[in-house]
């Protein structure tokens, strides 16, 4: 696959697992220090990640309340639980690179990254994971407070649900990262990606369960959400933890998540080879 890429451009397979491990350990330390230095910016991001589910939570609990405590098959407490868990899952799967790649290319920020003998995706994985880990310091207390204030109902959550939640969440994290990182590569071809990003965000708002639980969407939209990766990036882990899906669906869900990850990785490898060889920074 490296046929079209010049020699000095990194592919995915240049490093041994051992040196990769060393890279990750050092990079994590550096990244944590960086996040700590810019904790103000971190707080502002967290603010956005809390406000959005909070607004949906308020809207839907209001709907349920005005309907006598239940609407669309969810009680007020179940809506509260749904959006509280969604807030945590959305934070842990959150990826911002689609909004950053255009800037990286225009400013030439990508040039040194591409020169290094290691694939840039590793840098972004570490950045992303350390942001999420640090962010939990704000997100978890916020989730607990909201769960208490809005009387979240976790009555359907069994021990098995909690156990199945962990792999569902990890797979969702991997899938959303690979998927959106691959889509971000569009910036190598287009100078302006904002319209594409707006459209993707629009789809994911509805189809990943951010605006409302998927069960409330019209049938055709639910089918699309099942076929496309959106449900499997955010909504699925939430449904698993809250006991909204049976064990059969959970197993199938893991399969769909793995399938999408495999597909996204394949596309990413093909696309990256072409993208990197097309790269020309402004002024380079």
């Amino acid at each position, binding site marked *: 696959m490296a046929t079209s890429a010049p020699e000095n451009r990194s592919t995915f397979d240049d490093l041994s697992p051992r040196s990769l491990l060393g890279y990750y350990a050092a990079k994590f330390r550096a990244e944590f220090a960086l996040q700590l230095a810019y904790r103000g910016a971190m707080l502002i991001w967290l603010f*956005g990640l809390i406000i959005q589910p909070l607004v949906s939570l308020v809207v839907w609990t209001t709907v349920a309340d005005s309907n006598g405590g239940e609407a669309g098959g969810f009680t007020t407490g179940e809506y509260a639980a749904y959006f509280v868990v969604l807030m945590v899952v959305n934070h842990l799967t959150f990826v911002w690179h689609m909004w950053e790649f255009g800037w990286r290319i225009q400013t030439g920020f990508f040039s040194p990254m591409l020169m290094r003998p290691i694939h840039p995706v590793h840098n972004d994985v570490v950045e992303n994971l350390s942001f999420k880990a640090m962010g939990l310091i704000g997100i978890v207390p916020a989730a607990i407070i909201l769960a208490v204030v809005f009387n979240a109902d976790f009555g359907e959550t069994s021990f098995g649900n909690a156990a199945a939640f962990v792999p569902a969440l990890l797979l969702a994290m991997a899938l959303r990262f690979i998927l959106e990182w691959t889509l971000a590569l569009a910036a190598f071809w287009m100078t302006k990606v904002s*319209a594409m990003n707006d459209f993707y965000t629009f789809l994911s708002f509805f189809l990943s369960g951010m605006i409302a639980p998927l069960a409330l969407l019209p049938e055709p939209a639910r089918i699309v959400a099942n076929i496309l990766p959106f449900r499997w990036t955010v909504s699925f882990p939430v449904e698993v933890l809250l006991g909204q899906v049976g064990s059969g669906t959970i197993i199938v869900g893991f399969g769909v998540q793995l399938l999408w990850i495999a597909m996204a990785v394949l596309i990413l490898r093909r696309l990256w080879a072409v993208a990197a060889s097309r790269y020309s920074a402004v002024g380079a």
Partner: protein
Amino acid sequence: MHALTVICTYVRLGMLNVLQYRGDFIFQIVGILIGLVTSLLTIGIVFNQTDSLNGWTTDDLIALVGIQILMRGVISMVIRPSMQQLMEGVRLGTFDFTLTKPADAQLLASVSQFNAAAVADIVIGLGVLVVSLARLGATVGFADAILFVVLLFAGTVMVYSFLLMLSTCSFWFVKLSNILVIFGTMFENAGRWPITIYPGWFRVTLTFLIPVAVAITVPAQSLTGRLDWQTTMLALGLTALFAVGSRWFWKFGLTHYTGASA
């Protein structure tokens, strides 16, 4: 007269800027339309389950969305970019030049940027508002229309005063430009719904700390016949208080401004 010449010059520069970046303008319109469709579909899904959200009907909420888009245009036309520029100027030291110019520094700083592309928000917002009013079959009398315009103006003044106070803080704390992001988040997310649905503490935040309420909910209440005179007086009084307070704070801040390089 002098102030008017200053403003006109900045408007002309802003228009030239849009003409220069036509492609950006198109993408911006696409973004606004996608945001509008998001709002409308969300309202559709909510009203699939209920007939009224805290007393608001579908068309009332569409009117509110129209006002939100309209206000976004009004704010992002001059106020927001100018305040961003002001904070950046304080950080970089270029604000010194603003102070040496022979015009009121607050005026100069407040109109320094003109983002003509915001016209798109204003036109689309007005369009949504007109359609929703037609669907409501509301007969907006002359007095109602005047009150609505006055409240929109009050909302604009309120947001301006709030952002001016934030910017003035940058005389002491240099890295504050990110706070504008918090305002944007509140405006886009929380401003999409009438603040009456939120719990008390959140409503207070949206009224006094991050004034989205006066800017969006109150004008919407006036158009849909939900506004009592107490709320009107409170909104206008609060606006006056913010306007006077921010002017005073600005002058106080200026006496403490030392310049980035000095």
